[in-house]
Structures are given as C-alpha cells and as structure tokens.
C-alpha cells in the first residue's frame, strides 16, 4: 500500500494571530488542504491532530474545540518538536494498515499566547539536576554549537552563513513569519543570546496551522501527489549527559536522526542520499542543529561539515537545504515538523512557487524534538517507493 500527500494547507505564520481563535486557524488550514486535494470533509475517514506543549498555548486540549467531521475517528498526538511529523506518520500508518483511505492531519501552534516560551521550555528539563541552570532550548543548543566548534572546526561565520541563507530563502516564501534581508555579517552583529548563538541564528516564535490530506494509491486519481517513500522515527535517551560518552555517537552526532534516516532511506530505496535527494527541509531551530544533521543524513562525514557548509554556496549538485527558509523563517513549534513535510511535498509536486527548487524528484523532511531526543525522517518522491 502506497500513501500520497495530495493536499497541503497552511495559514502562513506570524508572531501571533490576535484576530483568530485556535479553531479558526485549524479550520483555515484544513479548508485549504481539502481544497488543494479537491476533496470534501465527507471523503475523509479519520482526523489526526498534533498539538505540542499545551503550556505554550495556555489552552488545554485546544484541538478538541476545533474538531472536524463529527463522528469520524479522531486522535491527538504530542511528541514535542516532532509532533507534526508524528501526526503525518500516524496518518500514513492508518492508511497503510487499510484502516483509512483518506486521513486529514492537522497541527496548530499558539505559542504567541505564552508569556515566555523559554520559561515553558525550561520545564522540559529535569527539575532536580537541570532546571535551575537555567537550561533552555537556547542554552541547550549553545552547548552543542560549542561542541561542534571544538570537535570539527566550525566557526561563528559558519553559523552565520547557514542562518543568512535561510533568511534569504524565506524572502521567497510568502508563508514565512520573517521576511528580512540578512547577511552573515548582520547575523554576527546581532545580540548574543548564549555564546556562540546570536539572535539571528535562532528561530522565531511563530503561530499558525498546517494541514495535509493523505490518501491511498487508489484515491490519487489525476491529482498531483507527493508519495511517502519512507518514514521513520527514533527516540534517544532523556539525559543529554548519557549521549556524550557512549560508544559511536556523541551528543552532536544525532544518533536518533541517523538511525531514522537509515530506516527511511531503506524504505525509499535511497543509498546515495547526496545524489538522490534534491531538496531537504530540516527542522533545525539553530544553525548548529543543521550542521548536526549533515552527517546523520549521509551528506558528509562529521569532520567535513565546515567544508560542506562552504560547498553549498558553490556546488549546485548539493541538495538545497530549507528552500522555504526553514525554522529560521518560521517556527510554530508543534507544527514545524509538519511544515517541513508540507514544504517538501510542495517541492515534489512542483507547487512551491518562487521558492521552488528545479528538478525535485525526491525530497527529505526531518523532525527534531525534545532536546534532540526525538528524530523523524520522511522521504517524499514523485513516484511511490520502488
């Protein structure tokens, strides 16, 4: 059984939507996805929703207020940063199991209602050993960035170049939250959040909703599909300290992403990812997170990472990273991993507008959550997996 994405709906992303309720955002994304799929809600067999930390929205189980298609099977997922991709994967599962022909997956982020997202994120860490540091997603990323600099020779300019490239890409994406013309020098001149991370290397706080329609191969018809060729997720250990000294994988090796990529590539028949994938949408909330993904996705050896950053600007054969602008352009946390898949699907369907990459036969989307504890990899293609 092959599964395809035939509809994508996004509200666009911004700091907050004070003029829209949570259910209005969900309904808007769902309507757009159904219109793109040319299907009515009656054609949908199941709805799967993804909303991550309720605390970010300040509303409990907010997706329940926006339920679509009363009477249909409905489930809700919360896997933190990978909530969006987990939700898509769950839809993929129910179709492959022949328990649904068409599934609507929808995600929402309302973190604009949070007084401080970093205070919320601080509560994901151990209340006894870590919470009082204060460890947050920013300081957590800073620890990794400094480790990458020490181990592999990355410099502040590498982080700045990655961030500036994403901002430039976001300028072509009307759905992005930030549209700012930023150079690597601008990044380095922005305020330091936690050394070595500057403000413009970090993702913004964004709100918005995303939805997609997944169908089995018999329902695709004459629509333009993005076929799910591979989907895999892996969970790592909770304590970051447990990931530093274990054999074969340090904290910055992203073992969970590497294992997920191996599984998803195997399903998709990908054995030379650098040559066989044209566009990659990464859940990289910081520049250093992108660098950690290169070796995990088979793009280069870890020690060659700094050169790989440089080569991206000169070698047109290297896959295009985050053509949408990625999380630097918009980071609606519980939706971001779904947006990565949505944007990859648009690339495969040649429907990405000004941000379209030429000749995308296959695209990869990643998800990353829970202090890089949770990783997902989704491979999409113009054809079903071989």
């Amino acid at each position, binding site marked *: 059984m092959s599964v395809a994405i035939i509809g994508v709906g996004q509200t666009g992303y911004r700091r907050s939507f004070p003029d829209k309720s949570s259910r209005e955002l969900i309904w808007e994304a769902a309507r757009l996805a159904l219109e793109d799929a040319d299907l009515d809600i009656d054609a949908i067999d199941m709805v799967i929703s993804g909303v991550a930390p309720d605390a970010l929205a300040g509303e409990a189980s907010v997706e329940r207020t926006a339920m679509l298609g*009363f*009477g249909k099977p409905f489930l809700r997922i919360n896997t933190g940063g990978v909530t969006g991709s987990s939700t898509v994967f769950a839809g993929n599962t129910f179709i492959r199991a022949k328990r649904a022909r068409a599934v609507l997956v929808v995600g929402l982020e309302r973190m604009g209602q949070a007084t401080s997202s970093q205070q919320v994120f601080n509560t994901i860490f151990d209340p006894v050993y870590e919470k009082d540091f204060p460890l947050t997603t920013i300081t957590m990323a800073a620890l990794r960035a400094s480790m990458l600099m020490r181990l592999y020779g990355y410099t502040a300019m590498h982080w700045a170049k990655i961030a500036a490239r994403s901002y430039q890409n976001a300028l072509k994406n009307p759905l992005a939250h930030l549209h700012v013309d930023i150079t690597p020098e601008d990044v380095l001149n922005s305020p330091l959040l936690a050394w070595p991370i500057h403000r413009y290397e970090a993702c913004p706080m964004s709100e918005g909703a995303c939805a997609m329609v997944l169908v089995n191969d018999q329902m695709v018809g004459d629509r333009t599909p993005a076929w799910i060729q591979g989907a895999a997720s892996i969970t790592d250990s909770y304590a970051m300290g447990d990931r530093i000294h274990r054999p074969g994988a340090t904290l910055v090796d992203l073992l969970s992403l590497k294992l997920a990529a191996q599984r998803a590539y195997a399903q998709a028949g990908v054995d030379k990812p650098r040559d066989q994938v044209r566009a990659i949408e990464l859940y990289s909330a910081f520049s250093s997170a992108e660098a950690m993904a290169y070796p995990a996705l088979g793009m280069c050896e870890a020690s060659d990472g700094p050169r790989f950053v440089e080569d991206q600007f000169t070698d047109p054969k290297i896959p295009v990273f985050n053509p949408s602008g990625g999380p630097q352009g918009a980071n609606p946390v519980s939706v971001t991993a779904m947006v990565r898949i949505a944007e990859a699907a648009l690339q495969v369907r040649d429907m990405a507008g000004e941000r379209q990459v030429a000749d995308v036969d296959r695209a990869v989307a990643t998800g990353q959550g829970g202090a890089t504890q949770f990783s997902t990899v989704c491979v999409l293609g113009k054809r079903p997996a071989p």
Partner: protein
Amino acid sequence: MAEVGSVYIEGAALEFSWADPRRNLMELIYDTVSKAVEDAGQGYDGIDSVVLAAHDLVDGRSLSSMVTAPAAGAYLRDEVRYSDDGAGAFAAAVARIEAGESERTIVAAWGRASEHDVEELSRQLFDRIFLAPLGLQETHICAVNAQKWRINGGDTSSVEAAQKRRAVAAKANPRALQSGGWRSTPAYPLESDHLPLWADAVAAVVISGKPSSVRVKGLGLSSEPYWPGDRGLATAPALQRASERALAEAGMTAHEIDLFELDGMTLYDEAIALEAVGYAAKGQGMRVLAEDQRCNPSGGSAAGYSVPAMGLARIVEATLQLRATAGAVQVGKPRTAMASGLSVTAAQTQTVIILEAQ
C-alpha cells in the same frame, strides 16, 4: 505485515497505587511495563516500537514523554506519544503492526492523580469564554448526562444495587486501589460513590502479529462535537458508532460478546455505555449493570481512575478475563470481550476494542 484481525496481545499488566513515596512516575511506569514484557515472555529484544498514551498536564511537565518514554522502553526505538486515551493509542499500535511497521509493540498509558489537581485540570478543558467561567468539570457533564438519562425514562430502581455490585467487585479486584485515593464532590444526581476513585494508574500491554492467547478481533473509533449542547446527552453517540464499527469488523453483535469492560467516569456513564454499545436496552443499562456479572467485573471506575490510562486499563482487565487469570473477579471462561476507552473533553472521543480468546 499482519492483516486486520491478526494482532495479538502477548502480555498485559496493570497497577493502581496512591502517592507511593518510594517510587517516582518513571519507576511506576518501568515497573508495569516490565511486568507486561515479562508476561509476554519475549524480552525486550524483539520489541521495535513503543506507543504511549499520556498527557503533559497530567504528568505535570511540558513534553513529559522526554523523561517518561525511556522508562517505557523507548530508547532507540520507534516511539510515539498520543495525548489521548490508552485505548486510542492501542488502536494506533494495532495499526502499526497491521501496516508492517512493527513486529512487536509496547503500549503503555498512565496518569498520576496524586500529583496533579484533577479538578483544576478538568476545568482547563472547557472553553475559556463560554464554559470555563461556570467552573465546569468533566464530572459535571457526567451529572448532566445522568440527569438526562433519568429524564429520558432510565430505570433508576437499580441504582443502589448497581453501585453495590460495583463496590463489591472493586474490593475483590486484586488490581484495584484498596487504600488512598479520593473522590470529588458529586453534582446531582450523582452520589459520592458513583464518582471515579482518583488513583495513580499505569497500564501496559505487549502486542504482535504472532498468534498468542488473545486476539484483537475488531476495533472502532468515533468522536462527538466539542460543545456539550451539541452532544447526544445520555446516549453516548461516539461510543455507539465506535462499537458499531468494532462489532462490524469482528462480525458480531453486542449480544454475542461474553464480557464487557467499558470505560465510564461514573456509575451512570457505565450504565449508559452498556446501552450505547447495544447490550442493554434503552433505559435498562443500570439494571443490567446491577444484575449481569459480565459487565465491568473489574469494578469499573470504582476500582481506580486516572486519565488517560483507563481505556488501556479496561483492555488489560478484559485480556486477563479471556486468559482466565483475573483472580477473584474472574467471571467464568469468556471467549470474547469488549473494552472501551474515552477521552477528553467529557468523552468527546471513544475507542472500542473487541478481543477474542484463542
């Protein structure tokens, strides 16, 4: 890849406790998951997937699965956490095996009522503008359902007998909470003993596509509108639809089911559930609950209650019955059982699972 109807429960475990000072949440999870894995007799090596049902606001920290998932065996495995009822997560885990994505999966669900304010959390579920100012909790919706059931002509003559039978079962159930816990203040027409006994609960099963003692014969899910005024009060339409789907898949009628473990927050909800799944006639659910030993032999919500674990707890109880290992609450030798699980807000979504002894 397993076909629909070819997934089996290999191991099951359930524990209720209350504010255990010797174990934190992760230790509670680890203990019960380990028992389920031991019960399955296959060890951890063959397990490639973990499906969880838990909720941040119940666990008391954001993205709580970061710390809880490894305790449930998720390290370097394909793991997903549903913020939904355990029976819904069970259905998703079954689909994983049917889809060929997993050979053997742990399903675990938990809630620790001793460490969170269940009433405040319940109030948070209601619309901030129109419903929350009323101070509504889910048990208040249960009371509205109960009152509507009475207005509709429900047979109230058996309320006391049904509650007595439930209490006796809960006292006899070796897995029920026997000390500690508490109940909220009842809203009319509910009485204190009708309410769920708040408890700390962990339920876990191991499932695979390899034939074992209990087979998943059918499953169904359904939902209702958010607004209570839009609901089918006292009739549980989501449960009715979910059971119709599960029974159709199993090729059975409700009267061919040998045993029921249906999730309801209160005594009345359990009676209404028996009507919704088609086993009791309209208005006769309470009488059936009072007289029929095959209905919620575990003691239902009187044996201990904590969301979002209860659907999976019902599945564990049904599994033990089918294996004739339920202990003092064992009811004969049932061949088939129906278990259900409900989720927020106030049973807006329902999952029904039909199991068969092999």
